């Protein structure tokens, strides 16, 4: 430190700079660097619905009862028109041109003041069309949340407490930790403004080696960085279309992430860009050479020969998509042995393998397998299947993934509709909005990314974790409801272990 100051002074004198001038120049350079710093930001903007979800509630008003009530009010309160024309709804359900004779259920939030005040002629009912959305895993609640997040790009905030079941299966049985006093940063209001959500895709050496001159020995890390731990996956089932591919392409470029697209579609549409990840069938591995700008291509399944062909055909990293079916551990190991730096793991869309094991356990197994092999950091793990809520992202990362892949949320963010079960990727049936406006759809997906990133920041901020990379595999910062129940209820008559292992 003393040497440095001395040398600065000497240099300053030699160049006729006083110490004050040197300070000013240093400050100027510092300011230039600071001004040139571009903090990552997702540009959210509220967008209108083009195919709104069904209303949450139906409002039924008995016309005769209402007419009698109004007549009574007129007799009782004339000429107090403020009283006569007052409505039992602060949300405007009865504020249309003819009031309660033509209620506007789309404005109803279910406060039930109307039906409590006027039970003789007003009823509020849950809308069965709303309740019928989705399936047993991706529920109407998930779809409504995604719709709101894609519309506004905000973190959904509501009053009152949690309304759902205690714990539950899958991700519902996992809780994230918090810290009473430790923060990622003391800057800003909550300290979350400086939390990093960028993720490295590719391979890092497990250690660095240098020669006697201090030069790096061996290869440099082979990786690139995306700004959010979310990538867009292949649209499942019959949802793939050119229009949707273009929307996903534009969105992934705007938010600086990746879009996995069928290689044939990408090729036909001329999509060759750093944000595009062409997904190649193993028999088409050599076609990796068609994508000059791609940083990553993926092979659909593990095949040693195809992997070699693809690797020879392109300078991009070659990732391997591995489904959680019988023998996936061996296929993953073989792929990594052969040099795969990205493994994209896939459960079904309910987040299960064929044996019913949930994806959090599967992700954890993959993560720990690589740790046991002593090479976790040489591989990036992407995980997909069952990710349909913002809370699933940190939970998947805690379970060992570097980043997660979005499939069904894309459909619901752009107000598409599904039919039947959403369990099997290849059997998903749905439809996109009839008039899919490109810019509108892109903004919806951008909003979804913004909202989910902000919700990830909430979780990280509460935990006191400064960057999402440090969340990976942090099982100790999660809690499993079953384990907590075992600890809390041990010894209580009739308790034989929690329901959801």
């Amino acid at each position, binding site marked *: 430190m003393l040497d440095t100051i001395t040398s600065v002074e000497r240099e300053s004198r030699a160049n006729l700079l006083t110490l004050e001038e040197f300070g000013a120049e240093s400050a100027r350079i510092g300011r230039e660097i600071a001004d040139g710093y571009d903090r990552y930001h997702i540009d959210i903007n509220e967008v209108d619905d083009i195919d709104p979800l069904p209303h949450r509630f139906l409002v039924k008003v008995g016309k005769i009862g209402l007419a009698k009530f109004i007549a009574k009010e007129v007799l009782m309160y004339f000429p107090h028109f*403020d009283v006569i024309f007052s409505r039992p709804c*602060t949300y405007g359900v009865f504020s249309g041109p003819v009031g309660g004779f033509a209620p506007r259920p789309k404005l109803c939030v279910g406060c039930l003041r109307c039906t409590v005040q006027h039970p003789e002629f007003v009823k509020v009912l849950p809308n069965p069309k709303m309740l019928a959305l989705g399936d047993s895993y991706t529920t109407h609640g998930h779809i409504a949340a995604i719709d709101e997040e894609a519309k506004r790009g905000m*973190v959904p905030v*509501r009053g009152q407490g949690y309304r759902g079941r205690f714990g539950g299966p899958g991700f519902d049985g996992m*809780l994230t930790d918090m810290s009473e006093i430790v923060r990622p940063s003391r800057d800003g209001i909550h300290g979350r403004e400086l939390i990093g959500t960028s993720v490295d895709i590719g391979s890092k050496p497990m250690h660095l080696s240098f020669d006697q001159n201090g030069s790096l020995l061996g290869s440099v890390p082979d990786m690139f960085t995306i700004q959010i731990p979310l990538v867009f996956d292949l649209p499942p089932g019959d949802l793939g279309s050119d229009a949707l591919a273009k929307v996903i392409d534009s969105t992934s470029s705007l938010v600086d992430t990746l879009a996995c697209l069928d290689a044939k579609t990408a090729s036909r549409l001329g999509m060759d860009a750093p944000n595009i990840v062409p997904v190649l069938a193993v028999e088409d591995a050599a076609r990796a050479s068609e994508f000059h700008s791609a940083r990553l291509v993926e092979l659909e399944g593990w095949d040693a020969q195809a992997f070699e062909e693809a690797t020879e055909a392109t300078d991009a990293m070659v990732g391997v998509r591995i489904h959680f079916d019988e023998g996936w551990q061996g296929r993953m190991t073989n792929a990594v042995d052969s040099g795969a730096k990205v493994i994209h793991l896939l459960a079904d869309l309910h987040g299960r393998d064929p044996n019913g094991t949930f994806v959090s356990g599967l992700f954890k197994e993959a993560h720990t397998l690589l740790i046991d092999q002593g090479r976790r950091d040489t591989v990036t793990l992407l995980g997909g299947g069952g990710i349909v809520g913002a809370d699933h992202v940190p939970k998947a990362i805690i379970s060992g993934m570097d980043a997660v892949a979005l499939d069904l949320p894309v459909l619901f963010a752009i107000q598409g509709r599904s039919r039947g079960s959403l369990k099997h990727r290849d059997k998903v049936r749905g439809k996109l909005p009839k008039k899919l406006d490109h810019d509108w759809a892109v903004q919806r997906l951008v909003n979804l990314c913004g909202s989910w990133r902000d919700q990830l920041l909430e979780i990280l901020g509460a935990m006191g974790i400064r960057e999402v990379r440090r969340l990976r595999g942090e099982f100790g910062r999660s809690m499993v409801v079953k384990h907590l129940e075992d600890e809390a209820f041990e010894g209580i008559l009739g308790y034989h272990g929690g329901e959801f292992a």
Partner: protein
Amino acid sequence: MTIIRPTQTLINKTTHLMRDGLNAHAFGEFGMPEALGDARWTDELILSTWYMAETGEVPDNLNFKTGKSDGGFDRLEFNYLEESEWLGHSEEIDTSLPLNRRGDSKNEIEIDIPWYGGGMSYGSVSVNVMMSRALNAKRWNTFMSTGEGGYPNELLQIKDNVITQVATGYFGVEERTIKASPIVEFKYAQGAKPGLGGHLLAAKAGEEVAKMRGSVPFVSLFSPFPFHSTYSVEDHSKHLDWIETVNPQALLAVKVSTPHDVDMVAVGSFYAGAHIIHLDGSYGGTGAAPEIAKKNIAMPIELAIPKVHKFLQKEGVRDKVTLIASGGVRTADDIAKVIALGADGCVLGTTDLVGMGCTRCSNCEGGPSRRGCPWGLTTTDVELQELVDQDWGSKRLNNLYTAMQWRLRDILRKLGLSSVQDLRGRTDLLKYISKELGE
């Protein structure tokens, strides 16, 4: 900005209709409203709470004990004695709870029921709601907390039953209110949004609210997380020392949420000087919180209580501190289960609001109308806040507490216990209803 105040005729009409409606539904005149309730607060729980607030008695034909959340309190029941061994139902069954167990020279406070009212700030609720709760607290020789939004002058007349809360934004914290309070509560975190701080949305920060909080009207007000002066348990101790200096007699309560190391946090708070450790579980209420926080961050209170109780026992300090639990405690049965799991008592929030007509529609933060609660509870809107008057509100809460105390005594007598304090940590009196048996 011109504020148009509602006429008294309008207020009278609306409150008359609302109260008649609450009464009619409580007595089941119009059946079960189909859109009412959720897994935690079922339609029957809400209507039974209304019934108790109307009558002071528990209902015969509604489940007033449990919800349908499939876990926690809703899968626990009491393992009652044979009927021949039950005690008689009597006011002699003691429901009181001492709050100072340290044996120091500070206030010796004993409340008549093992619960008090949780913090709801001025701004998140109106003065009418605060006063309704405070008047009821006085009637029951218990407490209600100001929450973090200042101490409206009206509360000073009931200061002996009001807890001043000091939270991370220090909104409305003044020496005079610290001096006025028998108990001062430090809120480190809130169960519904642990680690996230507080947020009063701009629409609810009206002129009076802003004035009380030392801000300007209609600007969002953030309570940061955490205390920016606290990095360690030593800093926490320094906080408590500050209050002790201002009000040497005040009991010190520390409210924390339920991370995996909540047991360590509790012990740290005890050694820092806390008389009351208040655990707020993740299913608790809030005026506004990110939906992602409500379920996913930290643990439900049912799972935190035994962990802390056992750890305090292991440390040999369990009998020197009062352990209070909140966050999803809804009924007298829940209160008894909280105590059987190891707490001394609990804090109620949502239950009070449901008693005054809340339907849990979740629009407390403002909702699409941006005016706050349409029932006049979680709002400072000039018209809506008039829907709850202090006399009506406090009478409903008095009735509700009467029924809840009756039910608590009913549970105790069926367990053969003559004091609620004997129930603490008696997990041997509980039984778990597995899914197969429960359905």
